[in-house]
């Protein structure tokens, strides 16, 4: 926009209502609407509409067979007052998310930052090494072999060999071990999308800013990270945070692969499991949707918290 039209617009805005002005702006920027149209059409059809329908269904007893009745808040009341396993799932999910979310986030950021210091060629190789666990879809299954409950499991075999234990440890049948092992495996696969976005984000930072910062009295790499690097990649930090939240609260697949479904005494039962149980096995779509809405609300809360924390970066 040239300055001329900008001033013209400012004058014009005074003598029309807000609605008229919005309409005029919309007409002026019609290209923008054309540009967002393809994406927004697909998004509305396959994401937005299903989400809205799910939220509405969470207030009904829809079960895929009968005509749904409107229940208002019954599903939610049942969830919190009458479903012990759900409360256990919430507890496990929170424990998991509070450990894995921040640790995986910081690990992604730190490793990306360290890698950024390396020379170009080594960096490509090192990035691959760290991203490797996320590349192969099912590769974490090998942790099952490693910690297998019989003497063929590597850990058991080694411990038996060294005489440290007399009998194999049933790693995935013992409540003591299931959660910690799942957490380790989850951390191991956690250098994923956010890690890649941090790497790409670090490359976009203008080098001259570092020089200016050095002149301004930045003394070591940590100060440089806090005052220069992080503030200039805030959008990427936000992106990484959402990734960390969705993956750590949506945790469940790792447990299924390692400890089976359901895990012993529901010791690693998460909200995801509860959701899949009611949707996939019992077809209680209404109740399942209510679980999803609660999970959604928890994630939005976590996101708001993280946003607040990220606004302190660089201060």
């Amino acid at each position, binding site marked *: 926009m040239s300055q001329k039209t900008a001033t013209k617009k400012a004058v014009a805005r005074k003598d029309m209502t807000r609605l008229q002005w919005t309409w005029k702006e919309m007409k002026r920027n019609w290209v923008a609407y054309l540009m967002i149209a393809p994406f927004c059409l697909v998004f509305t059809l396959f994401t*937005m509409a*299903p989400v809205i329908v*799910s939220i509405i269904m969470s207030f009904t007893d829809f079960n895929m067979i009968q005509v749904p009745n409107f229940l208002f808040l019954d599903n939610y009341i049942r969830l919190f007052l009458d479903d012990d396993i759900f409360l256990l799932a919430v507890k496990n999910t929170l424990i998991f998310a509070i450990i894995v979310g921040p640790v995986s986030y910081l690990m992604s950021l730190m490793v990306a930052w360290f890698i950024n210091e390396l020379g170009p060629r080594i*960096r490509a190789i090192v990035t691959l090494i760290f991203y490797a666990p996320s590349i192969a879809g099912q590769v974490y299954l090998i942790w099952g072999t490693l910690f297998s409950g019989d003497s063929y499991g590597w850990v058991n*075999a080694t411990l038996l060999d060294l005489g440290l234990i007399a009998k194999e440890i049933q790693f995935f049948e013992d409540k003591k071990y299931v959660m910690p092992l799942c957490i380790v495996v989850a951390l191991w696969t956690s250098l994923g999308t956010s890690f890649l976005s941090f790497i790409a*984000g670090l490359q976009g930072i203008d080098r001259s800013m570092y020089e200016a910062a050095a002149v301004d009295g930045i003394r070591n790499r940590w100060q440089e990270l806090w005052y220069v690097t992080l503030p200039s990649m805030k959008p990427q930090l936000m992106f990484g945070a959402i990734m960390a939240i*969705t993956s750590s609260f*949506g945790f469940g697949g790792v447990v299924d692969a390692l400890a089976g479904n359901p895990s012993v005494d529901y010791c690693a039962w998460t909200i995801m499991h509860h959701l899949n149980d009611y949707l996939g096995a019992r077809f209680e779509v209404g109740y399942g949707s209510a679980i999803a809405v609660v999970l959604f609300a928890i994630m939005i809360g976590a996101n708001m918290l993280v946003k607040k924390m990220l606004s302190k970066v660089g201060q």
Partner: protein
Amino acid sequence: MARLRTRKHKVVLNRSVGGDLGITLMLTFLGAFMFLPMLYVVMQSLKPLDELWMFPPRFIVMNPTLRNFSDLFVLMNTSWVPFSRYIFNTVLVSVCGTAGNLLFASLCAYALAKIKFPGRKGIFKTIRTSLMFHETVTAVTRFTIMSVLLLIDTPLALIIPAFGSTLGLYLMKQFMETNVNDSVLESSRLDGATEWKTFWVIAMPMVKPAWLTLIIYCFQGLWNAGSSIYIHSEQFKSFNYAIGQITAGGIKRAGASAAAQVIMMMVPIAVFVISQSNIIETMGSSGMKD
């Protein structure tokens, strides 16, 4: 030239030898932890059956053999639908889905980040929030919508939803915000370039690291997709699904299963290496400019 300069900065600016050493040590330790299981998968695929079930188990293969791979290919040839068909399906879905997502998401992200039009904030917030709603629940409605659009049991059922992947849009929007300079866009518009041209010629090259990243994970996600509720004809099923069927044959097929894992990994690794090396190139060339 560019590399020389970055090297020089590294020495001059705020870097202590102790810190470099500590970081290298930590990266080596963590890297080994990350890489060992991957190496294990490759080792397993090279082991003959007796070594796979040996006690005590050994990490390193003693008599490496390609038998597992040839077993896998034999099993592939016994499948009812020609195996190349499964591979074709997965390649088609991965390539088209990734290309479409890249184009749709970048266009939308550009408009949302760089054109000030009424409603952009609300639209972006809606899209970002929807990322946090879990997909399992939406499957019922999605299925209904797809059947209304007659997409069920066609490859389009997998390709078209990929176009609207919110993750891709969010990533592109964030990078458009940091990497694309408003004044450059202004001058391009002043020169009479259309929005489309400004987007394609000016903005897109500036966010090259972002779209290379998008290609990596979008492709990878589509490549690893297993069976889908939207597809029931055998001739439209994916490579991953077919491999899963083969390796579901029990202990006897442990070798073929290990080989299958290696084969499944190879293509995403290739895409990753190509994209990442290009990200690094972009960085080198942007160093040249200033």
